[in-house]
């Protein structure tokens, strides 16, 4: 076992390479499964190697904690419904953040304890001790405060996504100055700790970072959650990299950087899909505040056409091509299986059925794809925005299920609209548009949607799942 300890860095290197291959595998659904296994192998190598590096009398504590964690983690992973993936991922981010804080706190307490003991007494025990350098303290400070922000911000994101009562969106003129004050105070405490080594400054910094994480994310609206979740993903990576610097462990640094850049890219993609900057999402507050007055004014008297599920089913079964645009409403109504039944039935009748996914549909990147995959919708039937937009004019029926802003034509032709410039699915170009919605209420952006008042549009009010099931029944009844 001396061998493993002596060559630990080589094992960590193998792990780091396998981590890269894990992400590489995700370029396609077939290679991804193998990639995920590489990840597991890499993690096993890292953990086993560390077992030999970190020997001590309390190894049983590690094993016990690991088994407990495995039980909780696997139980949750097996049972969580796919509709709850966004909040589950947010919760997982919070765990990484909290773990990073605990490690940083443990490291600094340990360092202090060793300092009290003194290098001479440690040398007498055959232990080589160097007090932490400024560089180390700085790394620790970064790892700790990034971890703390990640923790509380992710807990809030979790609450928001799971619609918990305690996760209240805050708004008001006081929010931004308070955020700024806490952030500056946090930096001052961090700097004091860094320059004097004062422990009270360290605790104050950690506490402020925890508060900051909360007030930072609390003003962000629910529809912006894809950006927030991606960003926290990135943060959890940087926190890991920070701890890696402290421990001078290259595998931690590599894994942390991979995750960090992954989350950053996802945030960028999400922001681009909403035509907003990351600054605007995080510090601009919810867009609803800006849009509310215009929405109220224009909503007064506009005519829309509403229809029944039966009519819609009849129209679809007579169409040549149908494109289904799912949104958050499909997830909320757990309608994915009903939608798939409908799609299959239409296919049996010779209708071409495809799905169009907007990058920010749902509450996290790729949310809709997972739900449709769960319902067994063939991978090739699901198209990204750029792949399908050109096909809308030749499409007979577009069925919009619980999506709103991603099909709002105002993004293309109304420069005064807050979402102007956002790339959309051009559903309005289709011959007939059907929209399943609970009511005429506006989307998260508080915007009215011209699509709903279009002459070609038929509104079908009701619960997504029920309406889709009724459509299926209606088509079955006609018996083509």
């Amino acid at each position, binding site marked *: 076992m001396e061998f493993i300890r002596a060559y630990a860095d080589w094992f960590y290197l193998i792990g780091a390479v396998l981590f*890269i291959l*894990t*992400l590489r595998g*995700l370029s*396609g*659904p077939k290679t991804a*499964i193998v*990639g995920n296994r590489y990840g597991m192998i890499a*993690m096993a190598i*890292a953990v086993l190697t*560390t077992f030999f590096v*970190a020997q001590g*009398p309390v190894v049983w*504590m590690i094993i016990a*904690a*690991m088994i*407990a*964690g495995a039980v*909780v983690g*696997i139980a949750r*992973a097996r049972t969580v419904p796919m509709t709850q*993936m966004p909040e*589950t*991922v947010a919760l*997982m981010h919070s765990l*990484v953040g*909290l*773990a990073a804080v*605990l*490690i940083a706190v443990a490291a600094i307490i*340990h360092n202090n304890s*060793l300092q009290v*003991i003194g290098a001479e*007494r*440690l040398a007498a*025990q055959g232990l080589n001790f160097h007090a932490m350098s400024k*560089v180390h303290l700085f790394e620790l400070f970064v790892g700790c405060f990034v971890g703390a922000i990640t923790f509380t911000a992710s807990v809030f994101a979790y609450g928001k996504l799971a619609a918990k009562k305690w996760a209240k969106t805050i708004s008001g003129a006081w929010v931004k100055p308070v955020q700024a004050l806490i952030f500056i105070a946090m930096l001052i405490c961090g700097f004091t700790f860094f320059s004097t080594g004062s422990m009270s400054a360290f605790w104050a910094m950690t506490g402020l970072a925890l508060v900051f994480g909360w007030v930072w994310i609390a003003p962000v609206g629910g529809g912006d959650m894809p950006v927030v979740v991606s960003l926290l993903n990135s943060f*959890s990576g940087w926190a*890991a990299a920070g701890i890696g*610097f*402290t*421990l001078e*462990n290259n595998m931690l640094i590599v*894994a942390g*950087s*991979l995750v*960090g*850049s992954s989350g950053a890219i*996802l945030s960028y*993609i999400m922001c681009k899909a909403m035509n907003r900057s990351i600054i605007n999402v995080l510090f601009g507050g919810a867009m609803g505040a800006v849009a509310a007055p215009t929405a109220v004014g224009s909503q007064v008297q506009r005519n829309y056409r509403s229809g029944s599920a039966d009519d819609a089913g009849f129209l679809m079964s007579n169409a040549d091509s149908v494109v289904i645009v799912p949104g958050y409403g499909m997830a909320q109504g757990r309608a994915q299986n009903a939608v798939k039944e409908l799609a*299959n039935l239409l296919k049996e009748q010779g209708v071409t059925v495809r799905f169009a996914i907007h*990058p920010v549909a749902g509450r996290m*990147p*790729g949310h809709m*794809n*997972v739900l449709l995959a*769960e319902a067994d919708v*063939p*991978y090739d039937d699901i198209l*990204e925005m750029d792949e399908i937009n050109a096909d809308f004019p030749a499409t007979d029926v577009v069925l919009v299920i619980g999506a709103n802003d991603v099909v709002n034509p105002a993004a293309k032709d109304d420069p005064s609209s807050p979402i102007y410039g956002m790339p959309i699915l051009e559903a309005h170009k289709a011959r007939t548009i059907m929209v399943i919605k609970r009511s005429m209420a506006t989307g998260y952006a508080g915007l009215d949607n011209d699509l709903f008042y279009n002459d070609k549009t038929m509104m079908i009010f009701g619960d997504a799942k029920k309406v889709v099931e009724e459509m299926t029944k209606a088509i079955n009844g006609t018996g083509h």
Partner: protein
Amino acid sequence: MVETITIFVLAIFVGYYVVWGVTPALHTPLMAVTNALSSIIIVGAMIQTVGMPVLGLEGNLDFQSINIVSVLGAMAVFLASINIFGGFAVTARMLDMFKPKQKNKEG
């Protein structure tokens, strides 16, 4: 120090190019698996848990007992383990759904 920063910077570049290659359909599994990956901090947690010695109650060196450092470390191990096992398991579950199915249901 420069060496670690070199590794850090290069790893960011690798991450950048690899992640752009990820198909958008798999962005949710990507987030789940990166979650598991960032739980590599379990390595740090393990090292802290056994990070003996600390100063004992009577001023002696304590190599044995459970102390604040090892408890914090073990808690971090627990949290990271939830993520590691849960993250890989939930990713595997999701990727399984993306697997091309036998076309038995289609007429």
